[in-house]
């Protein structure tokens, strides 16, 4: 199962500058875990020490808020697209 994860540039710096990464797993959490294994410093920004999502980093699975699709338990399929959107506050 390969999904595409889109990162903002601030997180892409922790993934060799890549804005889009392939990740594998049956659930969103497993795919995030796959990225965390490959890019440990990115992993720290994607999930907390217990492996749960942060309240200030959202995941959109095919442009829908993943929290309403089961969060990290949401099942993902080949070709799905996930967008990671951390909170920013500049103005």
């Amino acid at each position, binding site marked *: 199962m390969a999904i595409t994860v889109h990162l903002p540039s601030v997180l892409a710096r*922790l993934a060799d500058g890549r804005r889009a990464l392939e990740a594998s797993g049956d659930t969103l959490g497993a795919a995030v875990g796959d990225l965390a294994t490959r890019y440990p410093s990115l992993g720290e920004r994607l999930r907390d020490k217990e492996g749960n999502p942060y309240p200030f980093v959202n995941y959109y699975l095919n*442009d829908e808020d993943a929290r309403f699709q089961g969060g990290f338990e949401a099942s993902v399929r080949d070709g799905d697209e996930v967008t990671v959107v951390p909170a920013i506050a500049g103005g």
Partner: protein
Amino acid sequence: MVAPQLSQDEILRYSRHLILPDVGVAGQQKLKAARVLLVGAGGLGSPLALYLAAAGVGHLGLVDFDVVDLTNLQRQILHGTADVGRPKLDSARKRIADVNPNVRLETYETRLTAANALEIFRGYDLVVDGTDNFATRYLVNDACVLLGIPNVYGSIYRFEGQASVFATAEGPCYRCLYREPPPPGLVPSCAEGGVLGVLPGLIGVIQATEAIKLILGIGQPLIGRLLLVDALGMGFRTVQLRRDPECPACGTREIRALIDYEAFCGIGAPDPSGADAVPEVTPLEIAARLGRHEDFDLIDVREPSEWAIGRLPGARLVPLGTLPEAAAGFDPSRDVVVYCKGGVRSAKAVRQLQEKGFRRVANLTGGILRWSDEVDPTVPKY
């Protein structure tokens, strides 16, 4: 309410609106009757104020307590070089009066707080969030939810931005999007992380567009949608937002009054154990030690782009993100002094080194900015 009449001069001024089928005279009268509050006269507030004034919004409110700084002018187009050192509201008033003298401008030269937000917001049709920190964003949101005023949201960082419309009768609010803010220091401010100067222009103009659409009641506003703008890829993506039934502001409504937003965002409350305090050393002390040719390690934890602007003599560049790996090569028997631009990132670095067992480590108080003030003014401030 009786729609305000347009004068001959206004008819001429707004003629490109008046001939637009979806605006027309009735729409322009709605704009003239509208009351819009802008929170912040900075990067986002600048294009917002200029375009909303030009569009003929009859009553604009502007909240800001800051003075114009030279570093603002790269993006804050409401202010000019002659305004440096003067209150932002002074230059804003001057520019807005020139753009459109028909606009009634009400200014609030104060920091927005839980004590004054409801009083300031009451009576406005829309609030536009052009603030620059999480605490004020949650404050703006909660005040809007409590008063039932739509919150036209925008925020920026480096090359990316977000925009949405919150706190409408049917849509989600900012707390539905992010239940809690990140811990202080995790997401750098624009002063620490930088921002492309045109980016607040892009996002501010999107917010102005949404404000005008809401006033006119046309189009599809960004209610229940978050627009993500990527200036580098020049891509726009829209993701769907939902109202969170568990949201303490607009869902369960357990937030019945404004709270302490600094505390909510973890700001200003020192760790009672004192564990967050790090050993500090002043620029003058370090200058004296360098003058005596004392042997110690001076570590610069800024980014290479900042290092290129200027640095301290004898320093070594170790960007904060690379510190965990680089620290393995440090000698724990030597004194280590760490600095950054203002002292926040280096304090974090000192804590990281302490966790790794370094005992002889200290933070340069006030960073390179204070070094420039107190020791060597030829090191540029930025």
